[in-house]
């Protein structure tokens, strides 16, 4: 071999260097792309968790409430309906005035009342008395949330240094709540209400339970519809359908359907399910049906690619020992394709969970104060709840919005984790 061989000549070495440089450049670009993706993801996570974590604890106040019979039930009849309509605000106010007897001025008393959740405390006592009218006349010790402003003050989102005129919490209020905090009457607790409570106009009382259940129901309906239909359609198309122009046309349409903006499915749901079939508005049933329409092209596509990934020799082997076509598909091919099918479906479902646009059209952007117990009762959905909360004026909503986003993200991560786990569990290798 001489130096003039085509592999070691000067020009050849140049070409080689060029090729190596190309590879290095590509590697750097690849790392850059991943870095950008990671940084934006981290950024998102940090900003959401950074504002959201504070919503997971909340300041509550423990107070004694005298359930004055002359105020609540002057007649002594203990009629639950009458008791329900009684003036519990006054009961709470009186208890607070007793705790701070030195506060007598009308304006100051108004401010004093505003340190607790003005809607939450009376309604909490109202509910207790309604459930057990015999409580009237007794003294209760209750634990209720402080107002959102006081909570924000303790969390540092309201600055004590701001001039009083511009601050939502007055100097007097700060003095009172600080003294209550010193005596342990105001304490920070884990915010259970965020998970068990329904939507509320008052941030200190709001929770995601109804939206969470609504989302779960809609997703359940969507899965029950989209999974069997999607998988069935895919098996038929792949294994049994005749190969002709018409079937090709259907295939193209299904692929297109997967790319249709989700709001279109919402409009379709409005036109078909609500206006034509007369199904109820705001119901998770309809929400699920719309989400099913949206997901099932995804499921068809995932199923078909999973089926194609199974080696044809499996089916041929089954056929050659005398299995019928349907046996070959269902007994041999489908179990091998199952991990891919499930992964695709779960990811499709996760996508559906995050959808707001189609739900907008069918009335799931709603204020619902009850946890739905059936799929035809009105409900909201998690992403919709996030949207509605981000739209509200009070500062405390900002952290609650982020907290709801954290919950939604957690559910998504769990779903995707489930997909990965299922795949590794069910996958078979030869």
């Amino acid at each position, binding site marked *: 071999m001489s130096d003039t061989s085509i592999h070691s000549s000067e020009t050849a070495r140049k070409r080689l260097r060029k090729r190596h440089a190309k590879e290095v450049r590509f590697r750097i670009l690849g790392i850059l792309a991943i870095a950008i993706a990671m940084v934006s993801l981290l950024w998102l996570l940090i900003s959401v968790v950074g504002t959201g974590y504070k919503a997971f604890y909340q300041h509550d106040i423990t107070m004694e409430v005298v359930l004055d019979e002359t105020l609540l039930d002057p007649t002594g009849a203990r009629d*639950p309906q009458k008791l329900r309509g009684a003036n519990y605000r006054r009961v709470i106010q009186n208890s607070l005035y007793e705790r701070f007897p030195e506060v007598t001025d009308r304006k100051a008393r108004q401010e004093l009342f505003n340190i607790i959740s003005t*809607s939450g405390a009376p309604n909490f006592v109202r509910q207790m008395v309604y459930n057990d009218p015999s409580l009237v006349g007794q003294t209760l010790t209750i634990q209720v949330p402080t107002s959102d402003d006081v909570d924000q003050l303790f969390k540092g989102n309201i600055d004590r240094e701001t001039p009083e*005129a511009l601050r939502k919490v007055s100097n007097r209020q700060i003095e009172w709540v600080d003294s209550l905090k010193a005596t342990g009457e105001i304490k920070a607790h884990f915010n259970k209400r965020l998970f068990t409570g329904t939507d*509320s106009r008052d941030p200190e009382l709001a929770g995601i339970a109804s939206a969470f259940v609504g989302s779960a129901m809609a997703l359940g309906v969507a899965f029950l519809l989209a999974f069997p239909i999607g998988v069935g359609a895919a098996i038929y198309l792949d294994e049994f359908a005749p190969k002709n122009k018409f079937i090709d046309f259907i295939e193209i349409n299904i692929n297109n359907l997967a790319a249709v903006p989700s709001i279109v499915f919402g409009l379709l749901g409005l036109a078909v399910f609500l206006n*034509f079939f*007369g199904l109820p508005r705001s119901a998770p049933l309809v929400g699920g049906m719309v989400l099913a*329409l949206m997901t099932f092209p995804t499921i068809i596509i995932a199923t078909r690619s999973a089926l194609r990934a199974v080696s044809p020799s499996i089916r041929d082997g089954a056929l050659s020992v005398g299995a019928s076509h349907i046996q070959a598909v269902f007994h041999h091919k489908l179990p091998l394709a199952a991990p891919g099918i499930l992964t695709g479906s779960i990811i499709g479902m996760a996508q559906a969970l995050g959808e707001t646009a189609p739900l907008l059209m069918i009335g799931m952007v709603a204020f619902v*104060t009850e946890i739905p117990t059936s799929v035809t009762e009105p409900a909201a959905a998690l992403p919709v709840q996030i949207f509605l909360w981000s739209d509200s*004026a009070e*500062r405390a909503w900002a952290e609650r919005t982020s907290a709801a986003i954290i919950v939604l993200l957690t559910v998504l991560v769990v779903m995707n984790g489930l997909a990965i786990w299922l795949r590794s569990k069910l996958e078979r290798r030869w």
Partner: protein
Amino acid sequence: MKMKSTLITALGVILLSACGSDDGTTVKSDAASKADTKMVEKAPEASQSSGDIRIVGSSTVYPFSTKVAQEFKNKTGYNVVVESTGSGGGHKLFCDGVGPDTANITNSSRRQKKSEFEMCVENGVDEIVEVKIGFDGIVLANALEAPTIDFTAKQVFLAFAKEVPVSDTDCTMQDNPYVTWSDIDANLPDTTIEAYGPPPTSGTRDAFVEVAMEGGAKQVACLAALRKEDKKAFQVVAHTIREDGKWIDSGENDNAIVQTLVNTPTAMVIFGFSFLDQNADKIKGMTVDGAEPSFENIAAGAYPISRSLFFYLKKAHVGSVNGLQEFALEFTSEEASGPGGYLEEIGLVPLPDAERAKYRSDVETLATYQQ
């Protein structure tokens, strides 16, 4: 396309036969059993009830409506479902007809239009109770440390219109040439015009163009003349917001914008009064025509950019929907929408006493209105 629709119809039929009718019956029994455990006295009502009180409409009225819904549910146990569909969408749903599937109340951040009223009447919704619940101001706000500016409505118009006349007397239109506020008036600060405002789909935007922009345009002499001759042409001028990046469409009412303002003190934002009220430690409102945006000024009508908020009640549903009139009574009660009421706490500006009494009695007697 054909295939798609056949697929969808087929799907719909399967769904309907699979779960439609079955679920219908289970719901009934569900609701009944819930009523049994939770409120014994209400059982007979639940059996004949046509369900929850359904409210649709304006996203501006939504926070007030939901607050009342929450209090009302606590006091009476009636379930109220409030949807935020926007004023226009609300009227459309409301006017759909009379019956258990239609909305009982629609919220509106403006008066019902004549065309909407006619659509209602056409669909058999001819008995409507109109209730004005209060006022809402639209404010221009900027960060606390930014200079306070005293605007006239005319300056607001000149700053945000897409096309402005070359001078007060010559109505030849030109693309809006103003880059800084001082270009409009030497007395205004020398900062770039930059505003985050509500998008075209929002009721806040409608009110802003109708009240502030039209009001400002009227102060330009030649446009005032144009208004007398050709109202349509005048409205086109007044209602078209500039699109060269000085006006940035942002979320209608978005908490995050407050933070944007703090970070960019030269920018300002246009949104509902309640956001200013809640964030007075970070932002401040500009005075318009000498009046600063405050509860008192909006209530007295001294602050020029304000609008009335309404809800409309379907009289035909009173009696068949349990608690409907009681809900309207709660909404118009002193405790709710009166001065010092719980709605004022979250930013609703109450009506003057006489007007409040009038609408209260309308609800009591279910007096319908005509257009």
